[in-house]
């Protein structure tokens, strides 16, 4: 490997933490979706690193399936956001309290 495995995993952990930070701090639903994409990519990076380390192709097949899942998730999620925007004219998740009262 070009770098030790630890460095790949730490980079992946940092990316995942940045994604979590986006989900926790931002109020724009679209940005929250982008942060979820960042988290998925961080996991993909870790899987590729381990796969390279073990000379095993299984991790890369997993990454392939995660990418499929990300595509499906984004299409449905963005459709939900568009439907919500039609009803409430906002994408701020603080104002989305349909189920609260």
């Amino acid at each position, binding site marked *: 490997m070009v770098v030790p495995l630890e460095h790949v995993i730490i980079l992946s952990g940092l990316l995942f933490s940045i994604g979590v930070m986006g989900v926790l701090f931002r109020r724009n639903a679209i*940005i929250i979706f982008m942060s979820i994409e960042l988290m998925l990519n961080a996991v993909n990076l870790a899987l590729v690193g381990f796969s390279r380390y073990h000379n095993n*192709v299984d991790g890369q*097949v997993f990454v392939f399936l995660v*990418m499929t899942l990300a*595509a*499906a998730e*984004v299409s449905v999620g963005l459709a939900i956001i568009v439907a919500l925007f039609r009803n409430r004219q906002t994408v701020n998740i603080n104002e989305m309290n349909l189920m609260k009262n």
Partner: protein
Amino acid sequence: MTLSLLFYIVSTLTIGSALLVVLNRNAVYSAVLLVFTFFNLSILYLLLEAYFLAVLEILIYAGAIMVLFLFVIMLLNVGRERVLPKMMSFQRAVSLFLLVIFFIGVSLFTIQGVQDLHQPAGSVSIGNVTAIGEALFSKYLFPFEIASILLLVALIGTVYLAKRKI
């Protein structure tokens, strides 16, 4: 040596652009920076010898998913947030603290755990299309079919959600 230097440079760029994605006020800038992050990740995959996934990363993420994001951002016209959310309320401080703890925990665990791993000897070429295709169509044939059903369900769900009255 040059390759490892390239790895560190690209990972710095990745972290920086990911931070900018999260902290930017303008949603369009965030989307473009996310594309940049995906390109950097693709270079990292190349350095880890996952050539097929590097191509897929650009094709699927930068090509398909981000176009969808940009479409929705421009469709909804939510360019710039009027009020920047208050960055340091009590909840945010606590969540940031927990996040740092999480990161330190993950790092410590991996650094300890990796020392127990042992790398198998010899190098097999694993990142090319042949190896992934063989695994995908023999050992992982069932998950592959399930993934196609998942995509079909997502397609039907999206079409249903896009109806005028919901």
